[in-house]
């Protein structure tokens, strides 16, 4: 059961979902400071632009892509009743996640290295 594509999809979707909820809280905390003026906003924004957070952004990107692709896969399977494609669509979602994380992550890494 734990190695079936259904369980992998279910587990990863929930794991990334919870991670994204935590991120949403932090995101609202940073953006919400905009009402306190440019100084507070820019300071809070700078606090989350350290190298650690840049790397975390790449993980965030992977979580968002996976959650989105797996979600779209779920909608496709349910709406069009294409249950026989369930596993292959999951592999597609995983490959797309890796590709797009690398594509989006490289500029973040370059940006980090340039300082």
């Amino acid at each position, binding site marked *: 059961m734990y190695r079936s594509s259904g369980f992998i999809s279910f587990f990863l979707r*929930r794991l990334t*979902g*919870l991670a*994204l*909820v935590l991120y*949403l809280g932090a995101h*609202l905390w940073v*953006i*919400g400071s*905009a*009402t306190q003026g*440019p100084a507070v*906003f*820019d300071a809070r*924004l700078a606090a989350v632009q350290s190298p650690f957070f840049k790397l975390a952004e790449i993980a965030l990107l992977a979580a*968002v892509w996976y959650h*989105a692709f797996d*979600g*779209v896969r779920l*909608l496709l399977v*349910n709406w069009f009743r294409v249950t026989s494609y369930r596993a292959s669509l999951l592999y597609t979602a995983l490959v797309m996640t890796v590709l797009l994380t690398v594509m989006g992550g490289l*500029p973040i890494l370059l*940006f980090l290295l340039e300082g």
Partner: protein
Amino acid sequence: MRWFQLQRLSAVALVIFLTVHMVVLHYPPFHIDFSRVIERMAQPLWKAIDIAFLFFVLLHAVTGTYAVLTDWQGVARYRRILAGSAIGLGVAGFIYGAATILAFQPPM
């Protein structure tokens, strides 16, 4: 409407809103600061778009967390308390977020 149907509806909305959000905010130039944000946020249409985005994000996050937690057997019996807290958190998040969005004023 069952909760998972609500989750699918907000999922479709988020695919659209998040795509717009990422393209508008995070494409080159990568640097973001107060002046860049306020320039766009001064426009009423962007305020409306962002409030709608906030609504769907919170709906999806709160419903999703509720679903994950109530699947846990030990937690399932606190379903009503959880549902109440979820609604409370969602409403509080929406008021805080919407107030932030509306507070943006055009630069003098």
